[in-house]
């Protein structure tokens, strides 16, 4: 038996070591899973951790997937640091995609490239509006933000379906539920030839710097976080919890909406029912594994993106279902939460006799 002894202060060592340990345990569980499925575990690990970084093109694809994950996670970190449990980033992403897609559909062939600015702004506003519903219901009615934001994910997906099956369906699309392909001018500028990496990556990295300054160098960022750590202290200092709630949800909704806009006007180029691919949920894991720290989340976004590409490769190379991605993502969050115990507690192993008394 063991007993947890609270540490006087959270361990700095374990706050960095715990994600590494969690990843190691996830890898071990992955090896066990591969063996259980009768697949070569070495080949399996190669597919997940080597192939995604093995060529320039693959690295580009890694960035294409890491960009939305990072953007959404940056916003979620503001929420989670303020103790606002926004679980509905997926819905905010979808609304951002719909709003941005709407502007892109309006664009004619003769518009200038500056059209991407209103497209992305529409994405941000769409995501903000969707998160704003959650903020409003929490603020005015005290409704649980976890459940409200989650229900709104289903509503957002159904709304997307309505648009692509209904008013926005491409008349020349052989009855497929999709909009017409956006005009070429609406394409988000790419950074390199021969790769789908676009300016979204730069925006995400600017977001990293911006979040770092906001959280650690501004009074507003400080006030934002105190309520999450010590509500009583925040009240005493006169920091408004309502303001913190709205700030957190609008920032994270805007970030998720921007990611949605970048996605549809970038790699996808049209609206389809398959726009939501779970980035909003995976970003929750990115945020936690990255320690809600802007720089940490860069690493975890890349890691999570590897899982996505690994899942796709596992399908073609090993004949395993693509949903293996979700299994590994979930496992990683599980093991991380367990390992995080080491930050706040020291584990003391007790002799069996004591254990009975201690339990």
């Amino acid at each position, binding site marked *: 038996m063991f007993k947890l002894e609270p540490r006087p202060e959270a361990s700095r060592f374990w706050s960095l070591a715990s994600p590494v340990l969690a990843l190691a345990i996830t890898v071990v569980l992955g090896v066990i899973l591969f063996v259980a499925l009768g697949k070569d575990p070495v080949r399996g690990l190669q597919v997940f951790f080597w192939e995604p970084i093995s060529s320039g093109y693959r690295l580009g694809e890694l960035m294409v997937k890491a960009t939305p994950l990072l953007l959404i996670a940056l916003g979620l970190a503001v929420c989670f640091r303020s103790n606002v449990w926004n679980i509905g980033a997926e819905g905010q992403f979808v609304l951002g995609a719909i709003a941005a897609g709407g502007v892109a559909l309006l664009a004619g062939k003769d518009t200038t490239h500056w059209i991407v600015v209103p497209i992305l702004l529409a994405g941000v506003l769409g995501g903000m509006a969707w998160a704003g519903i959650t903020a409003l219901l929490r603020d005015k009615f*005290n409704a649980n933000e976890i459940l409200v934001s989650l229900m709104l994910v289903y509503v957002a997906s159904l709304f997307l379906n309505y648009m692509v099956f209904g008013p926005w369906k491409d008349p020349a699309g052989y009855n497929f539920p999709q909009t017409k392909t956006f005009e070429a001018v609406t394409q988000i500028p790419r950074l390199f030839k021969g790769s789908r990496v676009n300016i979204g990556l730069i925006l995400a990295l600017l977001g990293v710097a911006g979040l770092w300054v906001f959280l650690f160098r501004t009074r507003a960022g400080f006030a934002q976080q105190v309520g999450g750590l010590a509500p009583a202290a925040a009240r005493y200092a006169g920091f408004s919890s309502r303001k913190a709630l709205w700030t957190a949800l609008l920032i994270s909704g805007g970030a998720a909406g921007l990611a949605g806009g970048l996605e549809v006007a970038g790699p996808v180029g049209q609206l389809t029912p398959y726009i939501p691919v779970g980035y909003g949920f995976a970003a929750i894991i990115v945020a936690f594994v990255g320690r809600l720290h802007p720089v940490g989340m860069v690493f975890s976004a890349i890691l999570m993106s590897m899982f996505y590409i690994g899942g796709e490769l596992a399908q073609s190379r090993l004949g395993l279902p693509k949903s293996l991605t979700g299994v590994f993502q979930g496992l990683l969050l599980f093991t991380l939460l367990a390992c995080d115990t080491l930050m706040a507690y020291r584990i003391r192993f007790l002799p069996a006799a004591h254990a009975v008394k201690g339990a």
Partner: protein
Amino acid sequence: MDTNSLALLFASMLNSGTVLAIAALGLLINEKAGIVNLGAEGIMLCAAIAGFATVVHTGNDWVGFAAGMAAGGALAAILGLLVIWLNTNQYATGLALSLFGAGFSAFAGQRFVQDKLPERPHFNIPLLGDIPVLGPALFRQHPMVYLAIALVAWLMWFLYRSRTGLVLRSVGESPESAHALGYPVRGIRLAAVVAGGALCGLAGAYMSIIYTPLWVEGMVAGKGWIALALTTFATWRPARVLLGAYLFGGVTMLQFHLQAIGVEVPSEFLNMLPYLATIVVLALISRNPAWIRINMPASLGKPFYPGT
């Protein structure tokens, strides 16, 4: 609407409400012991595929239900061990379980997507089932529908009339006092979490074996989250959970019936109804904090670790 379609609406409302009722009653047991289980959605998904796969192999529904319950209990036990023994955050851990469950069920269920179960035998209580209108509505249901009602009755007795129920509630209200009295708080909480998970598992298995009956990725479609909202809606009273479950079952079914009678609203908007109803109801109920607080377990969501 004529009487026949009304009977049909009523029957389907009971059927669809049963899934929510069983899951929500399980979550109620969890929450009475002080633990919030945000993993319900993932548990139901894994139990749905576990139950479905078992029935495909054995052909016996009841073995399938048992498999669903076992899967649900086992997954909930993981959550329980993490939040009760390692003091992890209950929200984050539950969320991890939901994400894992969604991925794992899709992974495990890949092979079963094409499978179909043979036609279910038609249940009919003799005599009662032949009453016009009422008969088809009330007495031609799967036994699980009646089991859900019995479960509520039992839970009301268990929580408020039995000694064990009192101990369970004390663990959720004030774990410190229960610990001081010598009750094994962590053991009781784990038992409650496993029992609750098993019921969520039963609800998931009922969905894939009887309610749909087939396996589709993500088929639980938010019912786990709605069940979670139901415990708040019912302000933690078993009878109100049942009532709320039928109400939401009715909303879920209304969409099909509205379509059938030719209401000119796009189906996507009708499909939004259960989710929108959940949001509206949550907002209305939560509006009055006093109303919520009367029956809410005082230590809900708070960690307890003896000797710290």
